[in-house]
């Protein structure tokens, strides 16, 4: 339990076997390589070459993954993949696959198709643009070569005029009556809504300068007509329609070719991705070693428990190796690895989400686990929901046998919590909300017999329980902090800053509860005495080290004022009531709607069943989110605030990459 004891290993071996050594370390999956402490450390030359060769392969793989994955339809659903339904391979098989696969050739083929697709797409977009321009040139009766090429004496221009300018433009051109025979103005049909009126102007080259001036003056803006257009707009339109459909067909065909390439190659590329990523990690690990002419030295952390296994594995490779194990020096900060048994391990993720403990710190996981379990149960708080979640997870575990350990732990966390959900649901009489009261009246006596609390009619009782749990949780946190301080020999601080508060708050609670008549009267005196002792210690401790008596007193009162933060912390646990209440009432509302729907003639029962089932599925999903987040907050903010700050480096051993495949040893 707690943070695993690590050993620091120094492994000396001959250069010639560095690949086998690294492979063995990687296969154990429990060695974290330490960077060389030498200044100006340079990677050993032999390894450098291996790394760059692997990087080259990886860059091909990244290219193929990026390009082909969008075209790949995985025959196995993504959820199944996530739950471990992946190919099982060994490193040897992957090695053989890598040897016989010509990644370069696949890359070249893919690049060629990709390039062709790009060109085709460009052509298609050009053609579409031209077709768009053509659709507004239909008013022009002559072949477009009159504009794009012109003749020896004539040329032309097409452009747009704003509606306000049309008459002025016409008039101005009319003034050139002497050129009248030399020019022709054609205006596209328009109505009052047209924004840009198309106009074409054919004129003699001899008057080009004057025409341009008139055009500029009257806001005529020329439209670029692509030079390839020579026929009439009608003819060109037809030509481009044909061109576009040919290009579209080509695009579909290229897409098909990419799909085929993807179907053929993606599974291999994925396997090789894991293979080369494993190699890359392995070589980069070796690269952190120091070397002499013929010997290499690799340093790594390993769990003390696995030391013998690892030694055996290494010595199996060669007898000419030297493995020196030592305990971490006091000034070293080793990474932290959480070792908890099967019951607590699923909760590790909650600690890791916050921050791993320091190597020499406390692992808070076993401490928070029971509280999280209870709090989650109170927030979701419904026997029916508990059964549904429990059943669903059992089904998943039965169907999927190869779930990755991390994912499995996370799911197991919810399996555990579904049990507390069920228990609290029974205690508080909630089964799919008020399903029993609404639809199964014969079961009401059984439900009532099992009920210990009733949040619906007596919420104050559950509020009291929530706050009491809060006090227990917080006080437990304080005691852990005190223990941690005592362990480090800070006895005065432990008493002055932690135990004093414990006395003060527990005393106040006993006093208050005693006054309320819920405990025998002598608890009032005991509680009062505890609170006073606590307060006095807090007061004195706060003034410690302050020579000025007035300041001593001020500091003392300020410290006592800190009790408001405890008040806030404790009240924060009222969310346990509120969220449990929330799920119960949402469930009740769903049943109510179901009941109302059942009154619809003929199809009522069908609607009712849909509403009730769909509603409860929604309720489970939304309430699980809340029931996970809020108890977690209580751990992180209220509980951890008392004693835990994390700050350790998580243990990240050298492992085989298993993104797409399960690699067996």
């Amino acid at each position, binding site marked *: 339990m707690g943070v695993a004891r690590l050993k620091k290993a120094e492994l000396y071996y001959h250069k010639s076997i560095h690949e086998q050594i690294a492979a063995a370390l990687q296969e154990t999956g429990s060695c974290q390589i330490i960077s060389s402490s030498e200044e100006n450390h340079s990677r050993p030359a032999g390894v450098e070459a291996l790394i760059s060769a692997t990087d080259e392969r990886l860059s091909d793989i990244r290219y193929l993954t990026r390009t082909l994955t969008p075209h790949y339809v995985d025959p196995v659903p993504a959820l199944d993949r996530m739950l471990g339904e992946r190919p099982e391979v060994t490193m040897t098989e992957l090695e053989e696959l890598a040897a016989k696969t010509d990644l370069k050739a696949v890359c070249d083929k893919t690049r060629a198709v990709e390039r062709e697709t790009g060109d085709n797409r460009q052509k298609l977009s050009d053609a579409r643009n031209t077709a768009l321009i053509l659709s507004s040139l239909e008013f022009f009766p002559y072949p477009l070569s009159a504009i794009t090429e012109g003749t020896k004496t004539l040329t032309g221009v097409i452009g747009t005029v704003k509606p306000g300018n049309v008459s002025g433009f016409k008039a101005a051109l009319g003034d050139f009556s002497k050129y009248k025979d030399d020019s022709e103005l054609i205006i596209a049909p328009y109505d009052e809504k047209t924004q840009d009126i198309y106009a074409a102007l054919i004129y003699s080259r001899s008057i080009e300068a004057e025409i341009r001036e008139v055009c500029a003056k009257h806001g005529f803006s020329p439209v670029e007509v692509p030079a390839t257009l020579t026929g009439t707009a009608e003819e060109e339109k037809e030509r481009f329609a044909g061109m576009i459909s040919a290009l579209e067909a080509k695009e579909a065909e290229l897409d098909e070719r990419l799909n085929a390439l993807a179907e053929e190659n993606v599974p291999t590329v994925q396997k090789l991705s894991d293979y080369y990523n494993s190699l890359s990690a392995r070589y980069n690990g070796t690269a952190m070693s120091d070397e002499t002419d013929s010997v290499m030295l690799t340093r790594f952390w390993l769990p003390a428990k696995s030391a013998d296994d690892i030694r055996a594995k290494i010595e199996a490779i060669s007898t000419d190796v030297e493995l020196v194990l030592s305990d971490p020096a006091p000034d070293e900060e080793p990474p932290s690895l959480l070792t908890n048994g099967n019951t607590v391990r699923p909760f590790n993720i909650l600690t*890791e*989400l*916050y921050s791993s403990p320091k190597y020499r710190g406390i692992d808070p996981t076993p401490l928070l686990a029971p509280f999280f379990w209870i709090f989650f149960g109170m927030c979701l708080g419904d026997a029916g929901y508990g059964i549904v979640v429990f059943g669903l997870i059992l089904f998943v575990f039965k169907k999927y046998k190869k779930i990755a350990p991390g994912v499995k732990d996370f799911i197991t966390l919810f399996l555990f919590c579904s049990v507390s959900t069920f228990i609290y649901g029974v205690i508080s009489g909630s089964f799919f909300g008020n399903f029993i009261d609404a639809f199964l009246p014969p079961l009401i006596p059984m439900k009532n017999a099992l009920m210990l609390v009733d949040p619906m009619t007596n*919420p*104050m009782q559950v*509020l009291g329980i929530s706050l009491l749990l809060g006090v227990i949780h917080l006080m437990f946190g304080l005691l852990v902090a005190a223990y941690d301080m005592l362990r480090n020999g800070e006895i005065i601080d432990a008493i002055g800053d932690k135990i004093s508060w414990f006395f003060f708050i527990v005393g106040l609670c006993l006093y208050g509860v005693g006054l309320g008549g819920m405990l025998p009267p002598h608890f009032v005196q005991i509680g009062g005495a505890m609170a006073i002792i606590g307060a006095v210690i807090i007061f004195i401790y706060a003034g410690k080290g302050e020579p000025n008596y007035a300041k001593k007193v001020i500091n003392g009162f300020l410290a006592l004022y800190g009790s408001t933060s405890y008040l806030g912390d404790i*009240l*924060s646990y*009222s*969310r346990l*009531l*509120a*969220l449990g*209440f*929330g799920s119960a*009432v*949402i469930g*009740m*509302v769903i049943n*109510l709607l179901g*009941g*109302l729907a059942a009154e619809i003639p003929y199809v009522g029962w069908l609607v009712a069943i849909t509403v009730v089932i769909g509603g409860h599925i929604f309720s489970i999903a*939304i309430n699980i*989110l*809340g029931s996970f*987040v*809020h108890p*977690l*907050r209580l751990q*992180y*903010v209220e509980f951890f605030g008392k004693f835990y700050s994390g700050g350790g480096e998580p243990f990240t051993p050298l492992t085989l990459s298993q993104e797409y495949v399960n690699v067996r040893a």
Partner: protein
Amino acid sequence: MEHLGLSLALFGAALAAALAGIGSAIGIGVAGGAAAGVMTEDPNKFGSCLILQALPGTQGIYGLLIAFFVLNKLGLLGGAGAVALTWNQGLQILASCLPIAVVGWYSAIWQGKTSAASIQMIGKKPEAMGKAIILPAMVETYAVLALLTSILMLMGVQVG
């Protein structure tokens, strides 16, 4: 004037559902915009983005919950018929609805902004999901407290 009490109570229920709902809609909208931005970079973050986007949605549910609570108290659900209410009782119910209406409205908007920031955080650091989910939850605390206040107040109001 005989129905003034009922009207006031209904007004309270409407405020609870409407204001908290508006807040959630804005909050989810803000978070959704950030989520869409992050997903243009990496569509695989859909799952985590969706969870973070959903967080400011609870206020709307709390509002709905209180509204139903009121309707149930008034006997408007099911065929029993409305209970008789003095205007004073109606005003009490209206007052009970205000905590979740006002706090739900505002906290959902701010929670949405925090969610949006968290979504951008996991855009850069996907491993920080745990922290990303806690920051918006800090805001929600006050909506939960308001819900609790509204529930306790409603339970205290005697009708019928």
